[in-house]
């Protein structure tokens, strides 16, 4: 159980006091928000809304929960048909897609540079929502990655938590063979319809699909090559359970099938939702690729809030985001504990919750670890065509499994991606 520290209590009180003077403008509208994960961003937005309503009773919130693909599709249809009255006031957008929306639909999103102090946020988050020197959106969660592992399975196979620290992927595969031999469990689940795992590996060595100028970089991309080689080794070693799509992949660990999960910190809520697995999990830094620039830190996903320029409640929506997401330290402690959300407001990390041990993870100080790893994530340029190249990459995962030559695969990915990004 988490207890508010005196400091954060004081901060909240000070904030509440300040807001009495600050919020001179009386808002009285309903702010509509679209987001997608009931265990995560929906729950967090509800918390944020409750906090804001407590101080501004005239503002009400309508938080609409769609599937993620539905949110993206509705947003894109409405923007491209110019039908702004169908849009909400605030929408959640995954970071990979941010530039795509900002560049494709100029004028659709409200710039917030003059209302929000962005200096307190992780710089990479601010950068990805900046276009022509204007900043759009409110940075939300980070997708810093970790290697979640089942203590019980690994112990049966003869490995202690110390053995899981600072691995290489080769060592990871060796451990995977042992685990399968001794427990019958596969080491990890791998979604063959998603390139997320490849992106984690690639970014851990500081690479992305594009160079700094946004040009496609595939065939001479050392990080991508190493990522594909690593994935191929894992597939050929057979230490993974194939999954078809997100739900199937989530089921590989919620059902207790596999021994480890390598993904973004936002998965914590889902992991912890399996109450019967309490105390059986641990978190280590992700294994490293043996190439120059390889690290134990990476990022997957993460998303941010954007206010629509056409919104009738535009000022109110910006004020709401600013007051909670840019200032309320206590809010970040609460969503960390309840939803496992690692925010990108730097000041939030000094809060008490970050140094608390978590019993679910056997008393490890997992949040402190994630905060440390976050500082080490290599910054990369997501560009505007990540979705397109992603499709080209996962289209070739099955051929990787069948022992395809990496050069050929890179060439095929390049030509497919090139056809898509015109």
């Amino acid at each position: 159980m988490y207890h508010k520290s005196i400091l954060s209590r004081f901060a909240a009180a000070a904030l509440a006091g300040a807001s009495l003077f600050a919020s001179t403008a009386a808002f009285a509208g309903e702010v509509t928000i679209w987001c997608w994960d009931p265990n995560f961003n929906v729950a967090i937005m509800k918390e944020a809304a409750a906090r804001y309503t407590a101080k501004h009773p005239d503002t009400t919130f309508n938080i609409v929960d769609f599937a993620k693909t539905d949110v993206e599709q509705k947003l894109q249809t409405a923007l491209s048909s110019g039908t702004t009255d169908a849009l909400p006031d605030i929408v959640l957008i995954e970071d990979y897609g941010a530039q795509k929306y900002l560049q494709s639909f100029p004028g659709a999103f409200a710039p917030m540079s003059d209302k929000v102090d962005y200096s307190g946020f992780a710089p990479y988050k601010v950068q990805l929502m900046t276009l022509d020197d204007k900043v759009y959106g409110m940075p939300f969660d980070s997708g810093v990655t970790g290697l979640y592992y089942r203590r019980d399975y690994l112990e049966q196979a003869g490995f202690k938590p110390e053995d899981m620290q600072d691995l290489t992927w080769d060592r990871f595969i060796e451990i995977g063979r042992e685990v399968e031999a001794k427990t019958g469990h596969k080491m990890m689940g791998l979604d063959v319809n998603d390139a997320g795992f490849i992106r984690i590996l690639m970014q851990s060595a500081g690479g992305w699909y594009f160079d700094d100028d946004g040009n496609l970089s595939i065939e001479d991309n050392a990080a991508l090559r190493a990522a594909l080689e690593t994935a191929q080794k894992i597939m050929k070693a057979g230490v993974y359970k194939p999954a078809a799509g997100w739900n199937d992949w989530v089921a590989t660990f919620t059902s207790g099938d596999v021994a480890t999960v390598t993904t973004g910190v936002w998965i914590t809520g889902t992991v912890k939702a399996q109450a019967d697995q309490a105390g059986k999990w641990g978190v280590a830094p992700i294994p490293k690729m043996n190439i120059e620039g390889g690290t134990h830190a990476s990022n997957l996903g993460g998303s941010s809030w954007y206010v629509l320029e056409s919104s009738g409640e535009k000022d109110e929506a910006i004020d709401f985001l600013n007051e909670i997401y840019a200032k309320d330290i206590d809010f970040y402690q609460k969503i960390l504990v309840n939803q496992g959300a690692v925010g990108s407001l730097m000041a939030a990390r000094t809060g008490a919750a970050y140094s608390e041990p978590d019993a679910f993870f056997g008393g490890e100080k997992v949040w402190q670890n994630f905060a440390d790893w976050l500082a080490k994530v290599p910054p990369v340029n997501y560009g505007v065509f990540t979705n397109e190249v992603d499709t080209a990459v996962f289209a070739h995962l099955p051929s990787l499994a069948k022992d395809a030559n990496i050069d050929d695969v890179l060439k095929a990915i390049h030509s497919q991606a090139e056809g898509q990004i015109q």
Partner: protein
Amino acid sequence: METARPGGLKRYYDVNEWLFVGPALALIALFMLYPIAYSLYLSAFSGKGMMVKFAGFGNIIRLTKDPVFITALTNTITFFVIQVPIMITLALILASLLNNPRLKFSGFFRTAIFLPCVSSLVAYSVLFKSMFALDGVVNSALETIGIISEPISWFTEPFWAKTLIIIALTWRWTGYNMIFYLAALQNIDRSIYEAARIDGVPAWARFVYITVPMLKPVILFTTVISTIGTIQLFDEVYNLSAEGKGGPADSTLTLSLYIYNLTFRYMPSFGYAATVSYVIVVLVALLSLLQFYVARERR
């Protein structure tokens, strides 16, 4: 008198005649023709989202260089070439068996086989997803019977993913086609069959030489409808592939799904998406013509 004037009477009937088809024509013009024309206009532009410029035939040139388009086209044709004949043959056989007047429980069989058509595409794809899971009921049944020794990866192996789509389509639509044939068969004079039977013509020959030729117009009709449906295939592949992406490895990506991706998943490129949609129009038109031509020649 008004009605006594022939011109007036004729004009009266003329207007009346147009009134019957009028509402439908107005709606079709508004919700079909206008969007079609608008898409055609869009197909001459390219660019990112709202930032477009005139491209002329640029999108058509892009088509020829796009490996994903080629994959989607190949997949679509594969589904059509394999699935439609299987389904039509199966529906014909089932219909001619059910048309046997001495068959017991024919009402039960007919209803049972038609039943899949009443399920919604979303509902049945959810059912199929759970049934064809790796540890799911279909794999365990196949293993019990002894057809397979290892579970089939229906959603992660490209070949099996395609097969699953074909199985699903066949499950959903065979009964639908069967009802058309059954209806048509009941119009055929039974004495023809009786005469053939007395002459010792075996069942398969009665099927090939009597049933199929008699049903030619209906077969043509259902083939055209199935062709159109299969070439526009969207709902099934969208709902059965993971996150509607047409995976694994683009093995279930169809032209319609590609259009959807170009519009909603990628950097929005409506001009190019509209160009791909016209490929479907041309394809369906050509195939329908071909089918009419084949059917006419044999008659």
